[in-house]
Structures are given as C-alpha cells and as structure tokens.
C-alpha cells in the first residue's frame, strides 16, 4: 500500500510509455486491475501551426503537490500502486506529456483513482504550458472545465 517517491517523476527526458506501463504491471501484488493514462501534445494542433510546446514547473512544490494527490487517492481507494510521471521542457506534437498508472483489486477503483489523480494534477500541480507557433509564443490559459472536473470529487 501507499507510494514511494520513485512513483512520482518529473523529467525533461521523453517518456517511454511502454517501459512505464511495464513498471505499473510489475510487482502489483494482489491487484486484479491496472489502468494507465497517457496525455500527449495533440497532433491535430499541428494543423493550427503548433510547432512545439514547452512546460515549466515549480521544483519542490510540484513534487509535494503530486505526493499529496497520490496520498489522497490512496486514502480514498484501496490501491497497490499509483504512478505519476510528468514531462517538462521542450515537446513536439504527439509527444507524451503525462502518464498516470494505478493498480487496484478491481477495475472501478483503478479507473476512478486514475481519473481523480489527473483531475487534481490539472488543477493543483504547479506546471505551466506554453505553445509555440514558429517564433510566436502563447502561454496556455487555465480552463474552467478543468476546475469543474476537480470539484466533482
């Protein structure tokens, strides 16, 4: 039960989703269900002229916020594992930004916990995205729908 710090990773290296998925399935104990989620830079955004995305965060606070969210998920559901991996730095369209993996005894708790972690990550974790359209740069604005998604829990 619970989580260890190595289950929360913030990295400027490209995410290897296959390897991360393998790690979620590794030593999952009595879990009958594993759920993984990957969020990526939309390739369709390229049609709007998006050439890249960059992500910055608040080192220290981000890890603490994520640990709190994972801790809360562990209190709400019986989970054998929660993994959160977030990319920072310079990303191209199609590249993964975020990966969440959860293991539980049944699929309902694994699904719910993964959604809970993503909803709160989007609302609480100190990351900021900037879109690059060639030499033009635009900071992404927070969405009201993301705030509402976290409120329903």
């Amino acid at each position, binding site marked *: 039960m619970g989580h260890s710090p190595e289950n929360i990773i913030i990295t400027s290296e490209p995410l290897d989703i296959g390897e991360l998925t393998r790690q979620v399935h590794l030593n999952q104990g009595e879990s009958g269900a594993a759920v993984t989620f990957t969020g990526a830079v939309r390739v369709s955004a390229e049609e709007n002229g998006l050439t890249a995305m960059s*992500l910055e965060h*608040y080192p220290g606070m981000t890890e603490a916020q994520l640990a709190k969210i994972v801790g809360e998920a562990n209190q709400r559901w019986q989970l054998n594992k929660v993994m959160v991996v977030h990319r920072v730095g310079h990303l191209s369209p199609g590249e993964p930004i975020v990966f969440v993996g959860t293991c539980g005894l049944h699929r309902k708790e694994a699904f719910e916990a993964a959604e809970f972690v993503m909803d709160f990550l989007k609302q609480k974790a100190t990351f900021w995205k900037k879109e690059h359209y060639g030499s033009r740069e635009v900071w992404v604005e927070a969405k009201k729908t993301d705030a509402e998604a976290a409120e329903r829990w």
Partner: protein
Amino acid sequence: MVKVKVLFFANYRELLDCNELEVEINKGSSVGQLCQFLSQKGDVWHQLFANPGSTIKIALNQEMAELSSIINENDEVAFFPPVTGG
C-alpha cells in the same frame, strides 16, 4: 525587517523579466503588503501587483496561500498564474 525569497513563474516571470528576488520587508508583513512593496519596482511590477486580483496565485513555503498570509524570516513566496499542466 525580515529577508524573503520571492519567485515568479510562467508569464509573470517573463513579464517581469525576473525569476527570483530577495527582498527585505517589515516583520509581520502579509503577502498583500509584499505585493504593494513589489508594485513600486516599476511599470510592469505596478501592473501586476498594485491590485492583485484572484487570478494571481500565491504559494508560501510551497503551500498555496492568500494575500492575508503572514510572512516570516527566510520564507519563500511564489507568484504564478493558474496552473496548466497535464
């Protein structure tokens, strides 16, 4: 007077052209009073800090805080826009 580390992120960092600052403020000051102090540093500072609205997010020692939060010696205060990760 107390020493405080102040951090700025994302568009605030770019707007102010500053990511980190050390300031000395009166003992017992609130984050709101720190904002007033910062607003006197120049035009863009005034624009951001003279009337800090609800969109400006505040962290005190890496925990979310309010304009009314009280700052102590060697505290770390961060200002940033709403988060957009994931």
